[in-house]
């Protein structure tokens, strides 16, 4: 298409590993935009994130400080990058970094960077530890959940649950525990990685469904595509999936976005209970999922739409999408020259 607008978009989540970050999928959507000619600035935390080495997708890469380095370190780094790259939009793709970007948003706006992300209140409301209250507020069924901060609290709380139970980290990781010993093992494993709290959740036997969606921040669902995972990794991540046509999933997503006035990408994870057919909300992830490219393949380019919304371009909500489109992931060995690894290691940019 002629006369595409030039735009520079920075993207995190370049870790296209076995439990992948969404960055590479988001970039693929942006590169297929009919509206924009997109220059991609990759923002990486680790020097072996595969996206760093994908020259056909990522134009320039900068290493950024991990979220625990604090607000000032991130602002300083992004200000440096902005002086060189003139970034128009940043799309954060990690749960763990989102609070930093929420705090940074007014500062980034001042230096010309736009973001479409949830507010602090929206982000906190859907935290896994707040799921019971969230379910009551939005009239959505949720599995019984409890947050615990110590092994003693875990033992006490488990008396209220039947086995199996799900033991979850506040941002990532979830394991099904069949005994108190399993639960304790998972508590230590997850807390060592992600810290407290750990969430104990009722196990719902059924099939998992996920929705990737986009809210405009004013109460309008701009697009949504539901998917059923058809192949799982041992970490429970989707390795294949298929788009489906379930009005109930779309209505639940629309109700949530409308009521909460959600801004940005999100993923809703639901379990349809085998015995009752009831839908239970498991999680709301405050960013696009790693499988967001399925939405692009189904006719809804959510990453492109997000950038347009962030840039105050006119965007019409999309309702239609192709049903029965599948995605299947694959592993691929890139051969990379050492100089790129050297540059990112020594200079923090490449």
């Amino acid at each position, binding site marked *: 298409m002629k006369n595409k607008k030039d735009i520079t978009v920075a993207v995190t989540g370049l870790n296209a590993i076995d439990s992948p970050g969404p960055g590479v999928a988001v970039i693929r959507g942006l590169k297929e935009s009919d509206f924009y000619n997109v220059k991609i600035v990759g923002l990486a935390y680790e020097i072996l994130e595969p996206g760093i080495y994908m020259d056909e997708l990522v134009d320039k890469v900068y290493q950024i400080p991990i979220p625990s380095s604090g607000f000032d370190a991130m602002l300083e780094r992004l200000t440096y990058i902005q002086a060189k790259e003139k970034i128009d939009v940043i799309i954060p793709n990690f749960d763990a970094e989102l609070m930093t970007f929420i705090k940074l948003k007014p500062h980034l706006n001042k230096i010309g960077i736009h973001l479409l992300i949830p507010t602090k209140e929206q982000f906190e409301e859907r935290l896994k530890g707040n799921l019971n209250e969230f379910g009551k507020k939005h009239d959505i069924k949720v599995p019984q959940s409890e947050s615990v901060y110590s092994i003693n609290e875990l033992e006490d709380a488990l008396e209220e649950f039947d086995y199996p139970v799900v033991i979850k980290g506040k941002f990532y990781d979830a394991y099904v525990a069949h005994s108190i010993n399993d639960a304790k093992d998972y508590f230590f494993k997850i807390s060592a990685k992600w810290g407290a709290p750990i969430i104990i959740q009722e196990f719902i036997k059924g*099939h998992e*469904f996920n929705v990737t969606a986009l809210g405009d921040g004013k109460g309008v669902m701009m697009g949504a595509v539901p*998917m*059923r995972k*058809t192949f799982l990794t041992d970490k429970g991540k989707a390795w294949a*999936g*298929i*788009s*489906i*046509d*379930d009005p109930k999933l779309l209505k639940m997503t629309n109700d949530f976005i409308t009521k909460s006035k959600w801004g940005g990408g999100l993923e809703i994870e639901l379990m*349809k209970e085998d015995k009752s057919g009831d839908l239970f909300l498991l999680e709301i992830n405050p960013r696009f999922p790693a499988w967001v490219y399925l939405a692009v393949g189904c006719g809804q380019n959510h990453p492109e739409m997000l950038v347009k919304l962030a840039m105050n371009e006119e965007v019409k909500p999309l309702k239609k999408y192709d*049903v*029965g489109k599948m995605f299947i992931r694959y592993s691929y060995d890139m051969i990379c020259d050492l100089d790129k690894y050297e540059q990112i290691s020594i200079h923090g940019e490449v």
Partner: protein
Amino acid sequence: MFMKLKKNIAISESGFVFNPEIGTSFTTNSLGVAILKQLKTKTSTEEITSSIIKSYDVDSITCEKDLEDFIRILEQFNLIED
């Protein structure tokens, strides 16, 4: 007994069956395709049995029994309307 396939169930001539509501898929043979096509509209098992007997070399008792088994599988796979 009357029954009907759930709406939107996609059936291809090759015998590939797709339920778009939950994303499940199945395969069946040409006779299965013929039965599923009949079930696109509300149909009785008696009507289906008589149409099979007309086209295939099978006695009515065997046909009824096999059809019953097939329908049980369809129900198990959540393809029949409640």
